[in-house]
Structures are given as C-alpha cells and as structure tokens.
C-alpha cells in the first residue's frame, strides 16, 4: 500500500461524514420550506373552506300585492320600489308567531340576508305570474347567522348573535329548516359589503383584463427588445449601458411603477382612474425587464452552430432569427413570460396608486371599466370589520393561489415538453 492510499483511507470516513452532513443540511432546508408551505396551506384552507358553502332557510313566502305595494309586476318602476323586506318579515312572523315587540322583530328579520329581497325582485321580474302566490323558498341567511351555524359547538358561544337569535336559529336547525349549499354568489358576483353577498367574479374579470393588456404589450415588446439586443445590436458602451439599466429595472420596487403610471398615463394622457387598461400598462412596465432578461437567456442558449449553418446555406440575418433562433428559443421565452405574468397577477402596490384599490360592485365588461384585481380584493376583505370576511379573505387567497399554481405548472410543463437538447 502506498503512502497516498494510506492517507486517503484515513480521511475517508471523515469525508463520508462531511458529505452526509452536507446532504442533511440540504434536506433540512427543503423541509423548512415544505413545513412553511404546509402551515400556510393548512391555515388558509382551514379558514377558507367555509366560505365555499352557505346556509339558507326555508320560508313560506307569499307574494302578497298589498305588502309588496305592487299591483302590476310588469311595471319596472313598481318593481324597483317594491317592499320586498315586508314579505320576508311576514314570512318570519308566520314561522315564529310568538315574537312581539319592535326590537325582537328587528332581531328576527336580521337573521335573513338583505339579498333575499333582491332575489324576490328578480323572481318577480322573470315570472310576473308569481304575484299573489305562495311558495316555499330557500333564502340566504345573514352572515352572522351563517357563521353561527358553521361554527363548532364551543365557538358558538362567542357568536355575534343574541341569545334569543341563537334559540331561533337552533330551532330552525333542529327542524331541518336550514340547509347548507354551494355558495354561488362567491363566483357569480362582484364585491359587496355584506359578506354573504360578496363575490370574487368582479376581481377575477378585472385581473383577466389587466393580464390581457399586460400580455399583449409586454410579450411582443420584451421579445423584440431581446432579439435586437442579442442578435443585431453592436457590442459597445451604449448597449452595455442599456443592459445594466434593464437589470436594474428588474429590481426596482413595484410601487415606483405605480407612481410612474399615475404621473404619465393618468396625469399626462388623461386616462381614467381604476381601469384595467392603466393597470395593464403599469404592470407591463413592471414585467418587461423580467421578460427581456429571460428571453435573452433563451436566445443565448440556442447554439451558434445553428445560426452558422443557416447562414452558410445563404439565409439572411432576419431569416436566421425568425426561422431558426426564435422557434428554438420560444419555450424559454414563454416560460419567462408566464413567470412574469404570475408575478404581475399577484401585484397590489402599483395598483394602489392608480386607483384600483376600490370598492366596485358592478362586473367589468372590458379594459375600460372600473375594476379591481384578485390580490387587491384579498387586501380589501382582510381589512373589513365583519368576522365572515376573514373566511372570505382566505377563500379569495385560495382562488388566487389556484391561478398562480396553474400558471406556474403550465410554465414547467411547457419547458419540459418543448425543451430541446443538443
């Protein structure tokens, strides 16, 4: 045995141990990350799942012309000002005949959501012949009663209902006059200050239009800039300067882009506040550096031999770029684009400056309608005083997460599928 082998033998055990430790550090790091993720998900899902169903109560509703103050349901004016609450009140009175006194009646009526009235109006508008008829309808409960039913026994004691209201709700629960169903309004409505009527469709549409504008602008501009810088631009001080600036912009805090958007798009060009078009423009500025950098990396990864071969066969520079380099670099560019979009989807700070942090009930129909976006909706709900908005916030986060996970998965899948190896 030589001296060297002897030495190696001696240190071998120690080197193995060091390697094991090294691996253990890595596993530790990953476990901490996974644990954090697990905590986050259990917390959010644990709070949020309850927002996806809601309780409603069965009531014998009589569309009584007298209490509704409507004699012709085809008259829109009359429908508009109909006294639908009175009908709900009557139905509750019939269900709980013993309840007397103004305060008690008020407490009883407060159990049913104000959405019930709007629903009755809609029904009457669609089917005028309902006037005068009696039907058993499932009407949404108010958020406090809804929260009470969703809470566990122990938590019910601390609910926001008075003792009397609790006995009424418990009575309804025991006689199976309340039931849980899917919370449709969550996915079909815009924002509301009543938790049981609030939905995220407005925010989803707002995010969609904003992303559309961002994608339509940032991807072509970003790719064009990257192609020029990589393939055509001369290497000199000036292009170096541009490169430094692009890298710099990628690290600028996003609120600065919001300030820029406020000054330029709203101040200078006179565009309206709170619209997805301006939001999209601001987010374009924000995502451009990301897209340029990733596109340049993708173009760089295309081996020079391909360019040389094409040129050797007589292709012009433009033909080389359009027919060989771009198709090969496209998977990388798309991945960068999707990651940029995902980043833009989760952004709130710059939108604060251009007025997209707003209470908007109506669903936006285009990029010029006032709208808000998903993360802003999370922020707005998180700062609302009503307890039910805590669950709504988590539900909105779950929806946002679903979109983000989908987009990032798409990026990974696309890279795997389209990737070429040389």
């Amino acid at each position, binding site marked *: 045995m030589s001296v060297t082998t002897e030495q190696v033998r001696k240190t071998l055990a120690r080197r193995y141990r060091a390697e094991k430790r090294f691996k253990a550090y890595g596993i530790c790091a990953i476990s901490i990350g996974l644990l954090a993720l697990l905590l986050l998900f259990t917390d959010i899902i644990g709070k949020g799942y309850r927002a996806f169903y809601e309780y409603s109560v069965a009531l014998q509703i009589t569309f009584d012309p007298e209490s509704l103050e409507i004699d012709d349901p085809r008259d829109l004016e009359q429908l508009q000002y109909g006294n639908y609450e009175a009908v709900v009140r009557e139905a509750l009175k019939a269900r709980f005949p013993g309840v007397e006194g103004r305060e008690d009646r008020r407490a009883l009526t407060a159990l049913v959501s104000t959405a019930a009235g709007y629903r009755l109006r809609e029904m009457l508008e669609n089917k005028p012949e309902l006037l005068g008829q009696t039907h058993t309808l499932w009407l949404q409960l108010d958020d406090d009663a809804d929260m009470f039913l969703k809470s566990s026994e122990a938590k019910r004691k601390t609910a926001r209902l008075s003792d009397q209201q609790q006995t009424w709700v418990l009575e309804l629960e025991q006689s199976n006059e309340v039931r849980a169903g899917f919370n449709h309004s969550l996915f079909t409505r815009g924002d509301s*200050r009543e938790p049981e009527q609030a939905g995220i469709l407005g925010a989803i549409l707002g995010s969609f239009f904003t992303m559309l504008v961002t994608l339509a602008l940032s991807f072509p501009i970003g790719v064009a800039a990257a192609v020029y810088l990589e393939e055509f631009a001369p290497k000199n001080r000036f292009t170096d300067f541009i490169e430094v600036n692009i890298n710099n912009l990628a690290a600028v805090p996003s609120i600065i882009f919001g300030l820029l958007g406020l000054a330029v798009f709203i101040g200078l060009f006179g565009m309206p506040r709170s619209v997805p078009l301006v939001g999209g423009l601001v987010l374009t500025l924000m995502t451009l550096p990301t897209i340029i950098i990733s596109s340049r990396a993708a173009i760089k990864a295309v081996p020079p031999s391909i360019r040389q071969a094409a040129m050797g066969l007589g292709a012009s520079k433009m033909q080389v770029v359009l027919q060989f380099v771009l198709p090969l670099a496209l998977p990388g560019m798309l991945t960068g684009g999707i990651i940029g979009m995902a980043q833009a989807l989760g952004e709130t700070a710059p939108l604060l400056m251009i007025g997209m942090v707003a209470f908007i009930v109506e669903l936006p*129909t285009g990029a010029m309608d006032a709208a808000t976006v998903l993360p802003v909706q999370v922020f707005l709900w*998180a700062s609302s*005083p009503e307890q039910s908005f805590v669950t709504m916030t988590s539900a909105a986060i779950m929806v946002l997460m679903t979109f983000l996970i989908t987009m990032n998965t798409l990026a990974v899948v696309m890279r795997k599928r389209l990737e070429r190896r040389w």
Partner: protein
Amino acid sequence: MKNTHKLVLAAALALSSVPAMARDTVSIVGSSTVYPFATVVAERFGRNTSFPTPKIESTGSGGGLKLFCQGVGTQHPDITNASRRMKQSEFELCKSNGVKDITEVQIGYDGLVVANSVKGPDLDISLRDLYLAMAKDVPNPNGTEELVANPYKTWKDVNPALPNVKIEVVGPPPTSGTRDSFNELGVEGGCKTFPWLKAMKGQDKSKYKSVCRSIREDGHYIEAGENDNLIIQKLESSPNILGVFGFSFLDQNRSIVKAVKIKGVSPNMETVGSGEYPMARSMYFYVKKAHVGVIPGIQEYVKEFTHDRTWGDEGYLADKGLIPSPKTERMKWAENAKSLNSMTGKEFE
C-alpha cells in the same frame, strides 16, 4: 409568427371597448375610516335605484382631498370622504385649481376604543393613565416639572388601582389615520391634564406637540400594521394585552373583545354621540358642486346618505358601527346637503 398575430388581435379586442372619456359612475375617494360606511350606502344606492353603483377608492383622508382638489372634470373624483375636517390649506388648494364650490356634510362619529380580550380583566382608566402609559416622555414621577423618559413598566406603576400587568398596547402604525386620532384624542388628551404641559401649548407649540403626541418606542406600544383584524386576533390570544382600533371593529367583534372604560364611560352609541366618551372624531364627506348635473347620481347618492333610514339612530349605518350625530345636527347637515350650500371658508375659524 401566428402567435404574434393572435396577441395583437387580443390587444385590439381589449382596447376596442374604449368608450368616450365621459363617465356615468359617481367616483368617490378618501378616508379608509369612512370607507366601510360609504361602501354600504353606495351598494344600497346602486341596487335600489337605476344609477350604477358608485366607485369608492380607499386613499386615506389626506390623499382623497388631494385628488379631489386636483380640478374640475370627469377625470377627477366627485366626492371625497374624510375622517377629519378639511384644512384651510386644502381649501385653498381646491380654490386655486378651480374647485370653488364645495358642499360639506358631517356624517356622524367614529369612536376610538381601547379594548382587551373578554377573558381579560374589566378595566377603567383615565386619559391621564393612558398618557402616562403610552407617551415617550412623561413628567417626573417625583412631581417636579421636568420630563423624563417613560419609566412605567406595569399598569400598577401608572395608577395603583390598576392591575399589576406589563403595559402592552397593540395599535396602528404612524401612517394610519387611526393612530393620529389616538395621539390627538387619547395621549394628548391625557397630556393636557397636567397644567404646566398645557401651558406649554401657548409658548412653544411644536414642543408641546412633540411632547404630547409622541408614543414610546421601547416595546410597550406594539405596531400591528394597518389591519385592525390582526389586532383583534392578538387580543384574543393574549388577555393581558390592550388594543387600539375603531368603534366599528369593537361592534363587530363583541364576542371576542370588550372596551376599556375611560373614566367610567364605556364607548357606545349614546356616550360617543353625546361627546361624553372622550375619544371620538367626526367624519365628513365633501361634494364637488361643479360635477352635480354632469355626472348622474351625485345628488341622489347624497340624498340616500343623508336620509334618516341611512344615518339615523335606527339606520343601517348604525348596524355597521356608525355613531349617528344628534338629530338636530343631522337635520342641519341634511338640509345643507340638499341645498348644496358651498363652503365659505369661515368653517376654519
């Protein structure tokens, strides 16, 4: 290349719905304290009338007034909410930008509460206790007229009648309007009870402000971010901590937190409305008269807001935690809103 075509097409589609710059939705900006009330009114207004629901941005009182005073024209907001009165300087700014006719409406009050968990002890403190517990510099405990860095560690140190627990108060950060109110109404309110500190106001106003409105930074006051729900959660988990937030949050979370009495007065609709409870601020909104008749629905929205079923004692805003003004006051402001009287500038005297 096909992809590029598709993208251009998508962009064209997205932009094709661009209407003229005219606006048919009322645009409202302003205070985050008024936001929860204004949004309720806006939503009801949108549902019960043929007008679209007004758009309400939460920009803070100062930010809202700045936007509001930017000028006349559809790109500028029609109404701004404020959790304090407009300042002279803001009125001047408005005037210099052509916003000359402004109608002021007082909405009601928002009480500022100090609260603890329902599992914690029932507390009754005075504003002076609050000042001594919270201020950065306090009068020397030996009674001389000099300021020392706040030496108090427990509530018992401040006032022997209070429990022997560490002073820990969670509240909003300095950027928040609620924090301003806490400093002005709570801490300064207690500061003023020392005659020699009160006398300082006449001699050296800036020193008085820095003494009476500074909060200690040695860990006894904990900043919780702008989110009042977080403060509620903290109080729930630790019964010995006190929290500072707006009355509407107390009202919505009575099963979790309870208010600390200030000199025997607990905050409720009556005590805040009458001014008996010391920590309350009035809330306002301002209407740009030049936009009335141009943007549809402004007058109708104001009418809905100033209706008794909205801001009255039995109104739906009271259910959301608004503390109504006394009836005579309300009638005066409703009248003012109806006839759209302009501010004269005398309001600031």
